[in-house]
């Protein structure tokens, strides 16, 4: 605690008093400044594919066509070529976006929710709850992901839901730790102390004071986790533990193209590019969000 006066440092630029400042609109406008255009566009494209696959894809992704196998990409009927079963690669990519994007976002959402819950409860309640939950986090961190994934999927069978749960419930620990340190920092702040002194119950503190102030961190973590989840799903599918075939997933497409790497390069390359672009787009968006909400410009 400062002993004698600590005036606001000179190097912090004083904020102009704005005549208008509604919460959401001004926030949105300022947030979108300097956004990585390509990444955001790609994310929007991927989401569009996921939501409107039947409208965007020209061909059925599952129906095989023995006559059209292994056509190279070109400006013909199949823009990106066909695979070994005659299925249009482009359409499979579009349908595959469904799986990857859905799994990516849902898994990030599941792990985010679980992690935040644990972080907030342990950060606000402290005491035994905190100790138990933190040791639980440590325990989960020690689990070998792949082994557990194999175990769960072989016990419960492969399905979209199971994949989301496996990824979601094994990746919440990053959230828990990071958010918990945010929560601890917030609970030390004077405005929380004053709310407590005024008689606020923990529920009010969490809802009014903690949650709104961790939204930023959550957003950043969330976009980064989407990338991780996509890669994890692709890996699981590659190993045959993901969504069941013949549902197209970019990971499955990679798996099936193993034998054709040297003969039909378009089989593995396009799904590979798609995965890379999706992960890059979400990471860059996460980076930008983190810079944008940089503490030296943040109000907190």
């Amino acid at each position, binding site marked *: 605690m400062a002993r004698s006066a600590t005036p606001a440092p*000179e190097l912090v630029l004083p904020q102009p008093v704005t005549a208008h400042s509604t919460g959401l609109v001004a926030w949105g406008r300022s947030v979108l400044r300097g956004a990585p255009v390509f990444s955001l566009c790609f994310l929007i494209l991927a989401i569009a594919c996921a939501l409107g696959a039947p409208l965007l894809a020209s061909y059925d992704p599952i129906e095989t066509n023995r006559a059209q196998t292994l056509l190279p990409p070109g400006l013909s009927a199949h823009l990106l070529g066909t695979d070994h079963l005659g299925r249009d690669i482009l359409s499979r990519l579009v349908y595959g976006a469904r799986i990857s994007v859905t799994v990516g976002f849902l898994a990030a959402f599941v792990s985010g929710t679980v992690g935040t819950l644990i972080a907030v409860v342990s950060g606000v309640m402290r005491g035994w709850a905190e100790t138990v939950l933190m040791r639980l986090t440590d325990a989960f961190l020690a689990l070998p992901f792949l082994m557990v994934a194999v175990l769960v999927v072989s016990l419960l069978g492969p399905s979209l839901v199971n994949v989301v749960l496996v990824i979601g419930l094994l990746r919440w620990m990053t959230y828990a730790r990071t958010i918990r340190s945010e929560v601890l920092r917030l609970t030390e702040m004077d405005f929380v102390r004053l709310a407590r002194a005024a008689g606020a119950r923990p529920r009010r503190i969490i809802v009014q004071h903690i949650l709104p102030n961790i939204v930023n961190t959550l957003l950043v973590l969330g976009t980064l986790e989407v990338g991780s989840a996509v890669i994890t799903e692709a890996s699981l599918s590659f190993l045959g533990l993901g969504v069941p075939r013949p549902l197209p997933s970019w990971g499955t497409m990679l798996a099936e193209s193993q034998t054709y790497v040297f003969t039909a390069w378009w089989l593995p390359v396009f799904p590979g590019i798609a995965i890379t672009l999706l992960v890059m787009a979400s990471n860059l968006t996460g980076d930008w969000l983190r810079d944008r909400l940089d503490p030296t410009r943040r109000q907190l």
Partner: protein
Amino acid sequence: MLPDAQPASAAPLLEVRDLRTHIFTRSGVVKAVNGVSFQVRAGETLGLVGESGSGKTMTCLSILRLLPRGARIVSGQIILQGRELVAASEATVERLRGKQIGMVLQNALAALDPVFTIGTQVGEPLVMHQKMSWRAALRRVVELLRMVKVVAPEIRVHSYPHELSGGMRQRVSSAAAIGCAPALLIADEPTTALDVTTQRQYLDLLMELQQATGMAIMFVTHDISLVGNMCDQLAVFYGGLLVEYGPRQQVLSQPSHPYTAALLQSIPQLGEPRERLPSIAGEPPDLGRLPAGCPFHPRCDAALDECRTGEPPPVFTLAQGRQVRCWLREQDDDRSAAGSP
């Protein structure tokens, strides 16, 4: 603000001429230092007093070339011992830092690296600038620690910063700053993080060090009551300008700028209780949106029309080396009068 011409033998140690430092941000230009001139003579202490956002820290950072990102000296001159610094290269200024100019900054804990011992940190400038061997440097460090009144310096040389109290850390920082016997010490709010009694001890120490080494000190603070015994000259900053400058005693007892006068009135003085403190209306200005004319006019009781428009008032020289930037003092301008008192 240049004091009256001195005989050649007393050339100033540091001379700052019409310094302007601006910070270029996305939302506009912040005129952090907007035409500041002053001198520091060898062995003298200059107090730079002002609130946050008044330009005093940015002035020091300009001299040290330690400006934050986006900040740039746009015009003016800084002359240290005859050498001009604004146009000098980065390498030249780096050589001067630590050797000719020592600095003590506000947060002593942040100034000391937690993974190195005191001996290493205080000794490093000695090894670098004076090419001493580490053994000789450590001996000198013990001497320096003794000078700054650290108890049992031979043992403390091997301690880590976290093992010391706040007051001791500040003294160690000061030892590091004076290690190479700099001609000028810049102390930026060195006592802010200290207890009141520790503060006094430290200020006494600074005065003793000055007596012993003969160095000049630029003492930056927002607390005008601290400059009381220490400073020979006082420079009052407001809104990026130097609004008043002169011998400390006179500025404090007979301030010529309305801001200085109002500030002194508004501070509670121990032993002189008053029912109500006269206060200055309004708030310190936003350097990114300075008003036209004098930066103080929105809060000034005696503002004239010319205070509100155009450029800030120029420097008027008063008797006895005092200077002020205020239209109200225009008629007292003594520039035509010959020589010094």
